[in-house]
């Protein structure tokens, strides 16, 4: 009798199963349970951090579908976030529509914008695409500021609290459940996109677009689709953002935000759903550690006192991008896989 390895697969469908082993199901269940219990046992600040992580995860998922899976660089992700945030806020303020309409509208508006940007970008690749999307980001930022009849311009816009079936979700704990559910849905959708025909077409385009075209992948269709899906995610994340923070301003959606999302997918792992979650959580949480570190060092060195500000985080993001690209291009995901494999095979190296 042959010895079966733990990763023995007999059919393709086994290979792309959503939950590979019973253990993954178990750990996902544990994670969900932990997240549900968190607001009851944990500090309210953790809840707030998880909220931010949820928004970041959804937005970074969108960018990863575009950049990590389809290989199209985008420096304008914040623009789609802005479109989603403003779209859903305007719907909520002007037409008083329920939240799911607002979120879908925000996502839809961003998706349409994404498809419109995607069409002229079909000819562009790499560097040129990065510049085109960056230009788009700048133009959107300008429009948001100038068109103040619709967007409130530099005064920003206040968002009403979210109401769900008569209950007002006015605290972080109540938002928490709502954001978790949406993030879960978006994660499941992303995972399913990537393991179906569409996802494989994306990966084929990323790996070699001309070769993909010769084997019958409709590049035009899939590239535009990828832009649309990615922008939809960003738009929904924008809507979630405006509901959670309660106030939006053009300065929230600058080039720096786009770079932050790029940092998330690079740190997490390009072309990996789990990695995206790692990256998003990591980038959201790291400023807290920097703050702690700054406070700790202030005790040791008096001149460090009150020196901490936002700049530190940004500098650290830049450093992280460089370090990960140079030393660990696969991101946290590949570190995690390596650790997992070495535990599984212990005491053998391979």
């Amino acid at each position: 009798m042959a010895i079966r390895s733990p990763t023995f697969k007999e059919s393709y469908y086994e290979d792309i199963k959503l939950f590979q082993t019973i253990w993954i199901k178990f750990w996902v269940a544990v994670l969900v349970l932990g997240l549900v219990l968190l607001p009851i046992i944990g500090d309210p600040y953790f809840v707030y951090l998880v909220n931010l992580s949820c928004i970041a995860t959804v937005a970074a998922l969108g960018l990863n579908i575009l950049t990590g899976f389809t290989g199209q660089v985008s420096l304008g992700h914040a623009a789609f976030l802005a479109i989603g945030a403003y779209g859903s806020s305007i719907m909520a303020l002007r037409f008083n529509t329920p939240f799911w309409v607002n979120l879908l509208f925000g996502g839809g508006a961003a998706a349409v914008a994404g498809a419109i940007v995607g069409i002229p970008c079909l000819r562009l690749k790499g560097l040129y695409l990065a510049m085109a999307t960056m230009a788009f980001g700048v133009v959107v930022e300008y429009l948001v500021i100038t068109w103040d009849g619709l967007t409130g311009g530099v005064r920003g816009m206040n968002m009403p609290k979210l109401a769900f079936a008569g209950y007002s979700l006015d605290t972080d704990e109540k938002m928490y459940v709502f954001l978790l559910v949406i993030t879960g849905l978006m994660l499941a959708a992303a995972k399913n996109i990537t393991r179906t025909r569409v996802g494989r077409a994306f990966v084929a385009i990323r790996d070699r677009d001309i070769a993909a075209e010769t084997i019958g992948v409709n590049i035009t269709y899939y590239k535009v689709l990828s832009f649309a899906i990615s922008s939809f995610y960003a738009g929904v994340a924008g809507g979630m953002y405006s509901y959670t923070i309660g106030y939006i301003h053009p300065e929230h959606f600058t080039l720096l935000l786009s770079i932050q999302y790029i940092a998330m997918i690079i740190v997490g792992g390009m072309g990996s759903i789990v990695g995206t979650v790692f990256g998003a959580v990591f980038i959201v949480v790291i400023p807290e550690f920097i703050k702690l570190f700054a406070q700790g060092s202030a005790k040791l060195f008096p001149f460090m006192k009150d020196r901490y500000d936002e700049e530190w985080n940004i500098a650290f993001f830049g450093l992280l991008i460089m370090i990960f690209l140079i030393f660990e291009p696969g991101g946290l995901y590949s570190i995690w896989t390596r650790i997992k494999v070495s535990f599984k095979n212990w005491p053998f190296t391979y």
Partner: protein
Amino acid sequence: MSGLAVGSMYALIALGFVLIYKSTKILNFAHGEIIMVSAFICFYLVSSYKVSFWLAVPITMALAGLLGVVTERFVLRPMLGEPVFSVVMVTIGLSIFLRSISGIIFGHDNYIFPNPFPTEPLNLGGIVISHTHLWTMVVAVVLTVIFFLFFKFTRMGLAMRGTANDQDTATLMGVNVRKVFALTWALAFIIAALAGIFLANVMVLNIGLTFVAISAFPAVVLGGLESVPGAILGGLAIGVIENLAGGYLEQIIGGGVKDVTAFVVLFLILMFRPYGLFGKKEIERV
């Protein structure tokens, strides 16, 4: 006329981009940060250490060149042979890293750069122009000619072009790719330092200087990423277009159009002529 003056500034910045792109196929997103940092270095040399301006300029250029070599060695060298995307992202990481570090060190205040040139404008047969702008134009044109000749006729220029074309083949042909890279980055940073000093003269000196480099992207793309004369012409054209838009469109649409016109132009160029006016159209082989 002031469009041309601003344009020559863009041209000087664009030259730095083109130099790096021409020999390494990398678009350096951290260029603006180098411009800003070297402007600050020069400012501190002049104001705090009382070095005379004409001595401070070569010192700044030397320091910038050194910074270029260091950057190449520790940030770009490990990326040799990696996909373009990763290399570009590394420069973006470098850019926001440098910008925030400078924000921490230099603060966010505005400084007035000590102007070394006579303040009363020159009058050249009816055309009024300030000394600084004239100097910028002269330097931009001279540098362009030098680099044009350098790429065309010298051995090192040929090595740089070869490296850009195909790193592996260049290595096989005995080109010292590492040396080429180090030299390119040093040269580009030196040009950035020059641009920074001129820019700080014309504008106020603050962290925001970095964004001028982002505004120079349209100039680079319009001229074509690998064309030295294209950088100059693109820069001048964008400068003029911006000023015209500021003059005419601003009354119709409202304030701020000036800053965004260049990006609309960039978008249009990329759509219709991605390789720019003078760039080479690339044919892709599988």
